[in-house]
């Protein structure tokens, strides 16, 4: 063998050895721990997300599906939107921490021809990652809870997985050893309605804004990387006969800084935009635990506006 090619052979042999000696045993340990922890994760918010995806398969088309992060999960009222538009509605609001790519990719796989997708934006555009839209730990927590979604993981997400796998696996290891079911008073699957709305905060007093969320001050428009990816998905959906709309998220007046709202909510998306970001800014008292999670009782203000725009858009001639 010629020397330059022998070098390639040596490199491949080393990589093979690395996979055999290190990566495969490591992956086996990780898989085992997360599998043992599975029973203790049932009922958490990530199970609820899987339920929502399942609803998208079981609720017959045509239907309206509101896709987005937790702003959508908390603010959308599927019943009210159904009444104002006449369509069945699934609130598929997930968790913005999963990143826009994960949310869009997961949701797109469950939309059927004739469905109406309403993509609810988030302030900060899914944490404003310029290079990665799918990087946050949340997505891998979702996978650890719902491993059958591994088949939908993209190459980027596989590459990013090592950065989170240790943290997620360690948390699951502790849960498994303690024999403690993952629990949260608000973010749990049993309080998701049959149409995906959050109901756990019904009648509850608002809590303090989560400090980490309060610190987030987004002042940038949507990332071009985001726009390109979202437009590719929208285009694909439209070709499949899915109507796509973009809606603005409800947010508190203190949080959404009005002078820059047009900039921070600007996006070059190839879909009809419903209304404008200013009309869905509400009083601070109408929010629950963060400045964009609406209190259960106040959702009607947001849904009246969203329903109105959606009805008009659906009735409008193409």
């Amino acid at each position, binding site marked *: 063998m*010629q*020397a*330059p*090619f*022998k*070098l*390639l052979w*040596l*490199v491949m042999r*080393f990589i093979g*050895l*690395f996979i055999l*000696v*290190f990566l495969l045993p490591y992956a086996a340990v990780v898989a085992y721990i997360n599998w043992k922890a599975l029973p203790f994760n049932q009922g958490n918010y990530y199970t609820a997300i899987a339920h929502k995806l399942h609803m998208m398969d079981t609720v017959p088309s045509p239907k309206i599906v509101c896709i987005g992060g937790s702003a959508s999960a908390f603010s959308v009222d599927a019943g009210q939107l159904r009444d104002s538009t006449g369509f069945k509605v699934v609130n598929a609001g997930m968790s913005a921490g999963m990143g826009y790519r994960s949310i869009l990719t997961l949701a797109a796989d469950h939309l059927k021809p004739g469905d109406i997708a309403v993509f609810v934006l988030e302030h900060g555009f899914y944490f404003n*990652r*310029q*290079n*990665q839209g799918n*990087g946050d730990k949340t997505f891998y927590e979702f996978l650890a809870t719902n491993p059958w979604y591994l088949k939908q993981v993209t190459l980027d997400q596989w590459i*990013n997985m*090592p*950065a989170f*796998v*240790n943290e997620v696996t360690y948390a699951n290891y502790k849960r498994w050893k303690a024999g403690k079911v993952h629990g949260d008073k608000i973010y749990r699957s049993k309080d998701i309605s049959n149409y995906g709305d959050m109901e756990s905060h019904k009648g509850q007093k608002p809590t303090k804004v989560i400090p980490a969320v309060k610190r987030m001050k987004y002042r940038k428009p949507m990332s071009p990387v985001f726009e390109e990816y979202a437009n590719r998905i929208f285009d694909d959906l439209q070709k499949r006969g899915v109507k796509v709309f973009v809606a603005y998220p409800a947010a508190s007046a203190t949080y959404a800084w009005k002078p820059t709202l047009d900039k921070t909510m600007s996006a070059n998306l190839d879909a009809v935009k419903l209304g404008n970001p200013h009309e869905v800014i509400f009083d601070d008292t109408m929010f629950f635990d963060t400045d964009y999670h609406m209190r259960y009782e106040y959702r009607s203000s947001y849904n009246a506006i969203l329903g109105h725009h959606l009805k008009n858009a659906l009735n409008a001639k193409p």
Partner: protein
Amino acid sequence: MLFNSAAFAVFLLAVYLLYWSIGSKQFRLQNVLIVLASYVFYSWWDWRFLGLLILSTLLDFTYGFWVASPDRRKARLFLWLSIINNFGILALFKYYNFFASEFATFMASFGWEVHPYLLTWGLPVGISFYTFHGMSYVFDIYNGRQKPIGNFVHYAAFVCYFPLLVAGPIERANHLLPQFLKPRVFDMELAKDGLRQMLWGFFKKLVMADGCAIVVDRIYQHGDYSELGSMNLLFAAVFFTFQIYGDFSGYSDIAMGCSKLFGIQILRNFNYPFFSRNIAEFWRRWHLSLSSWFRDYLYYPLGGSQNGKWIAIRNTLLVFFVSGFWHGANWTFIIWGILHGLLFAPLIFTGANRKFTDVPDQGKVFPSIGNIGRMLLTFILVTLLFVLFRAESMPQAGTFLQAMISTPGKNPGALLLWLTSTPMIFALIVLAFEWVAREKVHGLDIAGMPAFRRRLIYMSILACIIFFKQLESQEFIYFQF
């Protein structure tokens, strides 16, 4: 095309296979491949600027013949034309907006409102590097150290050789060019060392530098520095020093390692600068290719140190001023350069600038107490000045430094937090490896180690890259220069 991208991995493999398939006997054809591959590599960023690269290459190639003229007056005329051409390109693409804005500010101070036309096409990647390659060729011909090359492809391979095209090291015609004029023989040991050096470079960039960058960006982008307190700001400054070192020396290691795969040796750019015992030694160990370029083509022609200490100090200050300006069209870089010059000047005056030319604590496991103190002092000075380098403007740097000094009692817990943070641990690992390897070319020069231990180290480094690689990988800082 970033070194740390999948596209580059495919590109490198394809070029490597083609290059050695052609064989060393057909080295002219190998040079054609290098030029084409380099143009593809460059166009990956922005194909529009490829024309500028080719134009700049053509100009210096042509000037090479004219500058070689036995008529010294004619040669000098063309030398100056070449300088004007090269600096003209730099001035237009890199400095025009700076001068135009400064002119407007200056006029405004007299009450005259001026609205100069500003260029919006952005800075061509690597412009400072390839223009300096070209100038080195013309200068070397003028000084009789190099003969003009008759073959444009060989010359273009020297100017645009892809491992060093966008961020150096800044090569010298009399070092790199001769390597393109003769067959390259594949050297297995050299190639293996290249792979080791690339692995080390990737570790420094992806794990150390990008890890530090997250902390640095968060702190620098924070609006209120006084709220953060001295400790946080101090660590932001320290982490930036680690970041820029990991970033730039990591890039240089990848470039050197990559070049070794093609049987071509390029200049070393870093020689463990954090083990410097004074500022003069730091500049003999940091960005060597730029320092030696300025030394040979600016400092020496100005008279160097031949005409007394005061002239040497004047020349040194001038070199540092130009060096600062080379880094970017911003007052932060200029002041950064001048301040380094001011720290350097007393060493010339006392003769201490040539004091530490040996390997620190050669043959010893640990540095002496005295050397630890000297290294720390140098590190602190360099770190403080890097605040200017990182800041976007002088007011930002001023606010940062002021808050660093004036809020010592705030957030004392940050000391333990940052000392035990992942970026700090990786920075210390890099320093430990490099201390052990300080007599060698790079930190992972472990060819003499038993095979089992060596493989264990490679695997550990690879595992660290896989598990600790930052999701938001940063572009290499020096691309902007």
